[in-house]
C-alpha cells in the first residue's frame, strides 16, 4: 500500500472517529462545567471544572426528603435484572425446543417470533395502558418487567436458536446414550456450551430495560417509581432545560451499560451474525 493511501485512510478514519466522539465529549464537558446551558464554545476541554452537577443528581431528594437518585437507580437495576432473568428463562427453553426438536407448529412459532418484532410498540402500548389502568398497575414496575421481557424475547429466541444450531447434535446424542434426560442434555450440555450467546442475549435484555424510555414515560407518573431514562428526560423536558444535570446523569447512566457492552461486544457480533440477523 502506498504511503499516501495509508495517510488518506487514516485521515478518513480519524475524521469519522472524531465525529463519533465529539458529541459525547461535549456531554462530558457539560457534565463538569457549571451552569444549566451549553457554553458557546466548540472546545471539548472544559474551561472550569466542577462536580456540582454530579452531586446534585446523586443528592436529589423526593417530596419526603428521602434520597431520590438511589431510589431510581434501584428501580432501574431491579427492572433490568428482572427483565433479563425472565427473558432469559423464557427464551432459552423455547429456543432449545425450536433448535433441537421437530414438532407441529414449530415453523409457525418461529415465524411468530419474527413477526412480533414488527408490532409497533404503540399498538401494544395503548391496550397495555388501558389494561394496566384497569388493573391499577399503572405506576408499578411489575407491568414494565412483563412488557420489557416480552419485547426482548423474540430477538433472544432467534439469537439463541442460531447459536444452538451450531452445537453439534452428536454431543447431545452422546449424552443421551450416556444416560442423560432431555433436561440434563439441555441444562448440563447445551447451556454451558452456549455461554457466549447467553451473555449476548442477557446483555440485550438488560439494555432493553435499562434504556427503554417511552413506555416508562407513559406508564409511570410517580417520581419514586421513575426509571433512569425518565429521570434524565425530565431534566431537559418541555419545562426545564437543565443540561448540566442531564449531562451528569447521562454519564452516570451510560457508564455501566457501555462497560457491559464493551465487555461483550465480540460475542455480540458473532451472536448477531449467527442467529439474530439471519432471520
Amino acid at each position, binding site marked *: 500500500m502506498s504511503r499516501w493511501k495509508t495517510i488518506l485512510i487514516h485521515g478518513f478514519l480519524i475524521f469519522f472517529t472524531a465525529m463519533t466522539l465529539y458529541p459525547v465529549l461535549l456531554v462530558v464537558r457539560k457534565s463538569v462545567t457549571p451552569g444549566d446551558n451549553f457554553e458557546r464554545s466548540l472546545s471539548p476541554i472544559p474551561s472550569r471544572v466542577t462536580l456540582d452537577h454530579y452531586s446534585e443528581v446523586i443528592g436529589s431528594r423526593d417530596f419526603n426528603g428521602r434520597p431520590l437518585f438511589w431510589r431510581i437507580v434501584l428501580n432501574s437495576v431491579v427492572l433490568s435484572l428482572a427483565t433479563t432473568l425472565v427473558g432469559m428463562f423464557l427464551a432459552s427453553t423455547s429456543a432449545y425446543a425450536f433448535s433441537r426438536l421437530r414438532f407441529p407448529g414449530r415453523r409457525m412459532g418461529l415465524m411468530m417470533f419474527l413477526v412480533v418484532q414488527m408490532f409497533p410498540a404503540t399498538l401494544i402500548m395503548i391496550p397495555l395502558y388501558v389494561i394496566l389502568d384497569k388493573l391499577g398497575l399503572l405506576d408499578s414496575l411489575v407491568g414494565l418487567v412483563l412488557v420489557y421481557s416480552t419485547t426482548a424475547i423474540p430477538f433472544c429466541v432467534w439469537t439463541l436458536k442460531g447459536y444452538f444450531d451450531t452445537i*453439534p447434535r*452428536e*454431543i447431545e*446424542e*452422546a*449424552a*443421551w*446414550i*450416556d*444416560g*442423560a434426560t432431555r433436561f*440434563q442434555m439441555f441444562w448440563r*450440555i447445551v447451556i*454451558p*456450551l452456549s455461554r457466549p450467546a447467553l451473555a449476548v442475549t442477557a446483555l440485550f435484555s438488560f439494555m432493553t430495560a435499562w434504556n427503554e424510555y417511552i413506555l416508562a414515560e407513559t406508564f409511570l407518573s410517580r417520581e419514586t417509581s421513575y426509571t433512569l431514562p425518565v429521570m434524565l428526560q425530565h431534566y431537559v423536558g418541555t419545562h426545564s432545560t437543565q443540561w448540566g444535570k442531564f449531562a451528569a446523569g447521562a454519564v452516570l447512566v451510560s457508564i455501566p451499560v457501555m462497560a457491559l457492552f464493551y465487555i461483550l461486544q465480540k460475542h455480540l457480533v458473532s451472536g448477531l451474525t449467527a442467529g439474530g440477523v439471519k432471520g
Partner: protein
Amino acid sequence: MASVEFRNVVKRYSDHTVISKLNLFIPDGKFVVLVGPSGCGKSTTLRMIAGLEDITEGDLFIGERRVNDVLPRDRDIAMVFQNYALYPHMTVRDNLSFGLRLRRIPPSEIEKRVADAAEMLGLQEYLDRRPSQLSGGQRQRVAMGRALVRRPQVFLFDEPLSNLDAKLRGEMRREIARLHHRLQTTMVYVTHDQVEAMTLADIMVVMEKGRIRQVGNPMDVYSQPADAFTAAFIGSPTINLLPVEVRTGEVERITTIEGQGFSLQVTARFMHYQGDGLMGIRPGDVRLSSDTGNLQGRIDVMEPLGHRVLYTVDTPAGSVLCELDASEARWKPGDAVHVVFPMELVHLFEADGDQKSLLLEGGTI
C-alpha cells in the same frame, strides 16, 4: 455382553425408505463391521441399535430383549462418534465419568473405572485437560474411553477413524483390534474404508442402498463376492469388470465366455447360464505377456507403487487394470502386450438386476 438381532427392520423417512427389510444376526462377542458407500444406510443401522433413530417396522433385539421402544440410556450400549462428540466444557476426567455420574455409580467405583480406562488408553497425563487442548488421536482415545468406562453390552463405532490422518488411523485401528481381543465384547463398527473393514472384522456386512449385499468372513467376501457390487467395493485396486456373453453347451459342460476381442473356455461346474454377463478379475490376478495371451492391448499408464506396479492396459474390451510385482514389470507406456486371464481366478456375474454371482457354492471355476 449380548447379541444383536434385526428382524425385518424397515426405516422410512416420510417418503423415502432408507432401510428395507433388514435381517441380521450379530453373535455375542463378535466384531462386526458394516461397510458400504456413503448413503447405504450403515450409519442409520448403527443409530437404530443405539436408539438414536426410531424403527419404522420390524423388531430389534439386544440379547433377549426387544428394544424398539427402549430409550438409548436403558439399552446398555456405548457409542463412539465420528467427530468424537466430546463435551467441550468438561475435562477429560469429567468426560469419562459423565455417564457414570448420571447413573449414580458410587464415586470410588467411578474413580477406579476412569483410572482403568485411562491406563488402557494411555490417557493418564491428560485427565485434567479440556478436549480442545488435545490432538486428534488423543480425542479419539477419550471418546473410546468414554465408551469403555460404561462397560456396556455392545460397543458401537460410527466411522471413528475417518477424521484422523493415515498414519494415526493405522495405529488406532490396531488399538481397537487389541481392545476387542481383550474385552471380547460385541462391537458393531461402521466404516466406508474397506481396509478397516477387512482388518478388523470377524464378520463383514456389505451394504448398499439400504440392503445387505453379503455377510461373511472378510476373506470369504473378498475371494467369493456374492455379486458384482461387493466384488467392486471390496479389494483395492478395484476389480476389472468386463461385459461378456456367456454360453454353456448342454453336452460338453463347457462354458464359453466371449468378450470384446477375447474368448475363454472354462469347465464350469453345473452352470447353466446363457446370456449377457460380467466377467470380473482382480488386477492382482491378471498377467501380462509379450507374446501370447487372451487379449491384445497396449500399455496406457504405468504407476509404480514401490514393490508393485500398476498398469492400465487399453484393450478392445476396455481398460484393464493389472498389478504386477516390480520385478516382472518390464513394459513401458505404449508397448503392445498380451493380457492373460487365469481361468481359475475369473468371477462371473449376471449382467442385470442384482448382478448376482453365477458361480455356485465353492466359488472358483
